[in-house]
């Protein structure tokens, strides 16, 4: 069985900014354990000398001309915003005052 504990999942959920209930944390811990157990065998085959591949068909130096292309208007950009004011996104407080 893998080493993932409930406290680990709680920490991961915090990192991922997903609030979770106790029941969800419980369930996620056991499911993650099973999944991680099954995927960790990749370590067996990944030898020291094997280079990593991040991208199937790597391209390098993908450039374009430095010219202004299509840009959205402020109204278009804000049209799906949950909250906006005076052509800006309106967000809750960044810092907790307490």
């Amino acid at each position: 069985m893998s080493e993932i504990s409930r406290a680990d999942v709680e920490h991961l959920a915090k990192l991922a900014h997903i609030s979770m209930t106790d029941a969800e944390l419980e369930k996620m811990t056991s499911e993650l354990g099973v999944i991680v157990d099954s995927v960790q065998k990749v370590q067996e085959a990944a030898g020291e000398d094997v280079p990593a591949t991040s991208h199937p068909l790597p391209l390098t130096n993908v450039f374009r001309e430095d010219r202004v292309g299509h840009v959205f208007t402020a109204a278009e950009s804000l049209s799906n915003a949950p909250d906006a004011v005076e052509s800006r996104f309106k967000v809750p407080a960044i810092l907790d005052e307490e």
Partner: protein
Amino acid sequence: MTTTLSGLIRLTAAQMAVKLRAGEITSVELTQAHLDRIAAVDSTLNAFLHVSAEEALQTAAEVDAIRAAGGTDAEALHRLAGVPIAVKDLIVTKGQPTTAGSKMLEGWMSPYDATVVQKLREARLPILGKTNLDEFAMGSSTEHSAFCVTRNPWDTSRIPGGSGGGSAAAVAAFEAPLALGTDTGGSIRQPGAVTGTVGTKPTYGSVSRYGAIAMASSLDQIGPVARTVEDAALLHELIGGYDPKDSTSLHQEVPAFSTHAAAHDVTGLRIGVIKQLQGEGYQTGVLARFQESLEALRAAGAQIVDVDCPSFDYALGAYYLIMPSEASSNLARYDGVRYGSRVLPEEGPLTMERVMGATRAAGFGEEVKRRIILGTYALSAGYYDAYYGSAQKIRTLIQRDFDAAFEAADVLISPTAPTVAFPLGAKLDDPLAMYLNDVATIPANLAGVPGISVPGGLSEGLPVGIQFLAPSKQDARVYHAGGALEKLLNDDSGVPLWAQVPEVEEAAQ
């Protein structure tokens, strides 16, 4: 006349195009016939999340007007002009909502079109609507959609595959002759397999991903969904090609895939049977149809060879580390600020961080959360090398296996999925069992090579899919091999598999 009109939907897209060009039918008639079909069967199947009748009929009327006027404009019309199409709801469309099957994006209206959608508009294909999918394309059964469960037209108590179950079911049930899908680990090919239709995952970078909502950027690929290999090839020709808006886009001419789909001669074609993609975990009926397909190809002159791809045993593990890692990063953008839903915490101070936590808790479904947490774990300090790093090495080994296999064979073959469509709900409580559906389709995404699924007959009355894989940028080969097998099996049974789908119960009108 009415029988002709309702019969229209059972033509292939290529046949529809011919009739449109010859003036035998109009695009309005054809589009209306599909809208009628959607009205009749989609309350049973739930293939569509949104139907765009007005816009589709308007495009159809424009095509008809251009054709009626004749002249150079009519001659310049694209071959598929006027043939309707459905679009997976992971691909953004102006004027129609795009949800990615998630509550997070419910009602979201994209301010721009995906490049592939722009190409559909330029070629004047009426867009019928947006099809259902697993939330953010995460799943193999379309049951993880936040909105509805799509049913398989072959047996409405079973899954249509996933994540593109909506596109596959729509095409299988004659709600649309063509559809767009996306394939990150098999989401075009596996739904194709279990619905008796055809689906292609193109070479990575050969079809623009601009406007496909990102799940795992190094694996995602848009591709065609159709009933026949020729139709898939025609759609692939339309959507393929270089796009400066996608920095992973390849500079490459788009070959005439439909010509290759029609070249049925397989004499001397070396077809490699992948040792690792058969046997344990594959249903007997699936393997029986697979063997029959091999025999048919052999009898037609193909050279069947065995190829060994030992690293494929690690493909599933590598995929379920790389994909969640990339997904956890891509989905970080849903923070309740610029677009998507925003949910406030029920108690406590309203800080950005807490609003984000509540928004993502309410907006994401269970499978999405599972993958984000898994990806966050795989990328975290102390585990990165062991998990994400190892998975990337497996990716290299899989590419090497493909390289060696393509020395011995022109194309590779395997069953597309280990089983036929399973009952709805059967694997919902067992994520790992669900992940195993992708075992045969994942290697292609990890290596970036093209693959196609074509119908390979029935087992227990349900479709079996046969997958062909080719080297990168050799997508033409999967159309050649796929078209050849399709013809051999059609000649044998006398009627294409897609035409054998049982009648879906129609809603009272």
